[in-house]
């Protein structure tokens, strides 16, 4: 307990917590979006094989959206870092 209090007194807990939360949100969020994109793309390919046009469109749009989230997230991260 006293060690935790000591650490809390010398560490900027708010900044450290922000760094941890941003890391987890960015890392897990983008990996999830990419994983969802992969499953949508795979679903689209299966729909193409079974010739179900509606499903192909739905999976395709979802895959494009997921890709846009991943690429947009990466670009946004770099822009935030450059702007400081």
């Amino acid at each position, binding site marked *: 307990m006293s060690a935790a209090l000591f650490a809390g007194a010398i560490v900027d807990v708010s900044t450290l917590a922000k760094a941890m939360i941003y890391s987890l949100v960015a890392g897990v969020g983008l990996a999830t979006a990419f994983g969802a994109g*992969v499953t949508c793309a795979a679903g689209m390919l299966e729909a193409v094989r079974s010739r179900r046009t509606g499903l192909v469109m739905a999976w395709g749009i979802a895959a494009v959206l997921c890709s846009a989230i991943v690429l947009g997230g990466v670009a946004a991260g770099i822009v*935030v870092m450059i702007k400081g």
Partner: protein
Amino acid sequence: MSSDLKHSGGQSRHTSGLRTMHNELLLVIVVTAALAFDFTNGFHDTANVVASSISTRALSPRTAIALASLLNFAGAFISLKVAATVATGIVDTARVTETIAFAGLVGAITWNLLTWLYALPSSSSHALIGGVVGSMLAAVGGSGVHGQALIGKVVIPAIISPAVAFVGAGISIAIIYLLVARRRPGVVNRSFRAGQVISGGMLALAHGTNDAQKTMGVITLALVANGNLSANHFHVPTWVVVAAASAIALGTYAGGWRIIRTLGTRIIKMDTAQGFAAQGAGAAVILASSHFGYPLSTTHVISGGIMGAGAAKRLSAVRWGVAGNIVLAWMLTLPAAGLFGAGAWWVAHVIGHGALGPLVLAVLALVALAALGIVRRMRVAELATASPGR
């Protein structure tokens, strides 16, 4: 009388000119040592950055290394917050001399070379900070080091960051496996192989951002000590950014060719999704920490990500012995590099003032480097003789 004054003025100008020449020589020695350290940092860390992309065949070795070098170079231009922490946050900038900065670098390089010789996993970043703190303690005493900042900005983030990468990679791979569980493995593998181009690229960018800035910080300290920059107004000159970026990129490229030869023997077996999750989590931790100015060990963060991705699939897949070695090396690096930094400052101080001490120390360091190289070659030859089949 007038002739005496003229003579004394001439002597003063001569002494001042000699001092300026000594200082400039000292600055050149410090900058060269810092860039050499940056090069070895890139050389050491190439394996961490490209290993998973190559082992999962997401990229060919040649492409992976070229891309990593390029993105390491680009990464160095993204932020200067870590450089600010190293230059102004850990030691009292106004009391740093070029000899202190140089001794810190010698301490860090010595520890890096020793750990390389004995194949211990070590962090170049912690070695650099430990070396500078050690030489500062030896030269100025405890008042020259910002102890609270050292713990708050270096030690605690160093403990937390690999754990965050471990958890991030573990959660990511668990979600990914849930999402793709019913899909054809071939399609999934191909997709994550493509994804690794993005995650591997981000990791290389993150590595360049955090690691190159540490060298920029030390060069900035030397420039402040030499009077080229003000201690009150933090600023990293563009040439320092370009030089540090080039050194780490060249080191990454040079290190890469060694990796190609040892490929398949040291790399952990991972599937493409695990590689993607590990690289993504590592890159996110390093980039977010760089944004807040935390100088991390990129080696430890990447190791944490790889272990997290492995542990989420199967706990026994992780080499826990390696994890133990990493923790041990982490605990030893700061104090050991600090001791070497303090020793280097003491040697330079005993030899003489001005550029003489560091110059002799640089020569001694080069001789020691050559000796280490010979010892290493002899060990490799001994191993080859003992097990000719391997």
